[in-house]
């Protein structure tokens, strides 16, 4: 009996304590960040966090928002758990309880889809970070913007590069499409299928599998029979490893061309070993870009290596976090206020070319939010780069408009 009383008392006090902890103070410009810190995408969430923290801390150290007398920017974090409903609850909290002036996030496309209308309703500018589904920016809206690529951009990059490889020869006639059943996987698979059809690439194997499958042999057996030249793959962590190793076990000649994700995490290559040799992967960013972008990029990567990670380079998630947080800092500087409307206007008018500081890391030609392919407020210069695993490391090989050395290896034996 006594134990039960204690138990109840503990539960109630814990709840009260948590309520107190959640109260906030401080006079800064608050930017809410919605990211997955639990659930399947938690690893990515942590990388974004690191990139964003670096961007903001650098900005604050350099004097903060000078047009506001050196006010600091404060990032307010929220865990979306990768789930649309949780995302909606947390974004409400950021907007109404933490009173943020703007929003960043949320990485998962489904969370993006569910939270954009909320930001719209309250009139909070929302710089969509990496939620790449085109659909998020469809329909009438004013407050959501995206500097990163859309799935349709990624698909176009992949097919364009495939055609470039085919042109140099040998010819590529057949592709296969393999994706997990997440919104990203299915969205990319559909976009790739359409583009493949448009460009005369035959596609017989089109497989959607359950995320975190126990066995991918049935798909690999099909691929082995069909003998496509290229296999477009959309997989997260465990599936990327399983697919790579299964393809190697069955000695399938087709070359994997992945849309980033599980294939470009920091551990993928070391885990996959020789089986990953020659694999192509799109990426939002790669350390090879520092050669093309120059000293600032190299310095930023060095800072990240020493201060924010245990010696590993930046990757697409940390770089994207840095990009979007830096854009946000610049926007707030231009707006000169913490007012949501003014920040939104500054975002809408943000037109820069590739010399802008925010594009120190990425190879976009610029940033310009326009209406394109049915999406409103999408950066028309966004896109992904192509890397290839050569001698155990990813090397920048595309797009061919950027990398003109033709250093991609095709065919891969």
């Amino acid at each position, binding site marked *: 009996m006594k134990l039960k009383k204690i138990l109840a008392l503990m539960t109630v006090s814990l*709840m009260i304590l948590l309520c107190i902890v959640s109260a906030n103070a401080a006079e800064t410009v608050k930017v809410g960040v919605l990211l997955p810190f639990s659930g399947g995408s938690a690893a990515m969430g942590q990388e974004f966090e690191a990139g964003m923290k670096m961007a903001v801390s650098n900005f604050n150290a350099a004097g903060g928002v000078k047009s506001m007398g050196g006010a600091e920017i404060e990032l307010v974090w929220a865990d979306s758990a990768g789930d649309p409903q949780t995302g909606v609850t947390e974004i409400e909290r950021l907007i*109404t309880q933490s009173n943020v002036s703007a929003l960043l996030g949320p990485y998962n496309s489904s969370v993006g889809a569910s939270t954009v209308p909320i930001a719209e309703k309250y009139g909070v500018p929302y710089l969509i970070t990496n939620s790449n589904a085109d*659909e998020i920016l469809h329909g009438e809206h004013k407050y959501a913007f995206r500097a990163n690529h859309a799935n349709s951009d990624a698909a176009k990059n992949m097919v364009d590069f495939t055609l470039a490889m085919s042109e140099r020869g040998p010819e590529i006639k057949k592709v296969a499409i393999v994706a997990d059943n997440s919104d990203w996987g299915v969205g990319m698979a559909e976009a790739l299928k359409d583009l493949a059809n448009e460009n005369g690439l035959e596609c017989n194997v089109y497989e959607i599998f359950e995320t975190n499958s126990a066995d991918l042999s049935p798909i690999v057996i099909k691929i082995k029979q069909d003998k496509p030249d290229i296999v477009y793959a959309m997989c997260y962590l465990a599936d990327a490893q399983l697919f790579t190793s299964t393809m190697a076990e069955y000695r399938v000649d087709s070359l994997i061309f992945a849309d980033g994700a599980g294939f470009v995490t920091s551990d993928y290559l070391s885990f996959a070993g020789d089986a990953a040799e020659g694999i192509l992967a799109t990426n939002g960013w790669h350390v090879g870009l520092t050669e093309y972008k120059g000293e600032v990029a190299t310095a930023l990567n060095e800072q990240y290596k020493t201060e924010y990670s245990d010696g590993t380079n930046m990757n697409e998630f940390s770089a994207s976090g840095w990009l979007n947080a830096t854009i946000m800092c610049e926007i707030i500087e231009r707006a000169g206020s913490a007012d949501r409307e003014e920040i939104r206007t500054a975002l809408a008018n943000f037109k820069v070319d590739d010399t802008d500081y925010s594009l120190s890391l990425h190879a976009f030609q610029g940033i310009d939010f326009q209406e394109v392919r049915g999406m409103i407020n999408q950066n028309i210069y966004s896109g992904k780069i192509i890397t290839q695993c050569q001698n155990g490391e990813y090397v920048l090989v595309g797009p061919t408009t950027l990398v003109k050395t033709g250093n991609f290896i095709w065919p891969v034996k």
Partner: protein
Amino acid sequence: MNAKSSLKRNCQMILFFVIAAAFPLVFTNSYFKQLGTIVLLYAFYASAWNILGGYAGQLSLGHGAYIGLGAYITTVLFSEFYISPWLGMVISGLMVGLFAVAIGYPCFKLSGVYYSLSTIALVNVMRLFFIAEDTIFGFKTGSSLGYKIEWRGTLIDMQFLDKKYYFWLILLLLAVVVFVSHRIKNSKTGYYLSAISTNQYAASSLGINTTYYKLKALFISAFFAAVGGSFYAMFIQYIDPASVFNYDTSVEMTVLAMVGGRSTVVGPIIGSLLLVPLKEIARSNLGASFAGLPLIIYGVILMLVVYFLPNGILPLFKHWYSIILRRRREDLSV
């Protein structure tokens, strides 16, 4: 159970709803209204589950199947046929109820554990089906990419700018399901169900048509689950298979009802009022820095409650309440 105590209990219930209705007027912050609505939604789910799981003793771990189906049907009716969700949720409730009975009829021949497993299979099949198929019965349901619900913003469309209307709506729905639960409990159906739940074979040997009553409980339970799903769709305005045909939510409903005290009317509500805010607040404060910690706390509390309070928390509260009453009576008599 005399007239006076049941009158007192009815008054307590009404008092609860009146106080709850005042909640969004006191806590005008939108986040609290959101949180409150979610808590009540889970209380609603748990109460709907309880009709089958508590009263009839059929431990369904796949109620998500009915929630999801209700959400999709109402969404399609709303988007394609412009049918108001007020009507839509009743239609989808009836359709899902019939579906549940059709599937449930063979499944009820299964004893306890086997039945639970079949419900797990059901919710997963529904989820996989809705992911695999982009278009179902000719309606574009969007597969993994989800179905966004258009904002039309009127009362007829069950879309409100101010969150407090959603809060009152789910409170109203909760009142309805509580009323229905109460009526079932005190009716012939309720007595038969509790007999079936205690010992199905003895009940059937007494001449009770166990299949009929179990199916009746299933129909009502699935009907309300579907209504809950319809509310969810109009509230979040975005549904996708993984979120609405959700095994974790199905288990959670069970947990809330059982921790609160199943086979009671208010048990599910008590369970939800205690556990859901705890989980949400833990996640908001700890989720970002300590990934996974909120659910660990949730799991540990569940284990503690199951271990020390096997009949749920409600009997404990009743015990405390009666102790307080007895003390007062003693004071008065001196």
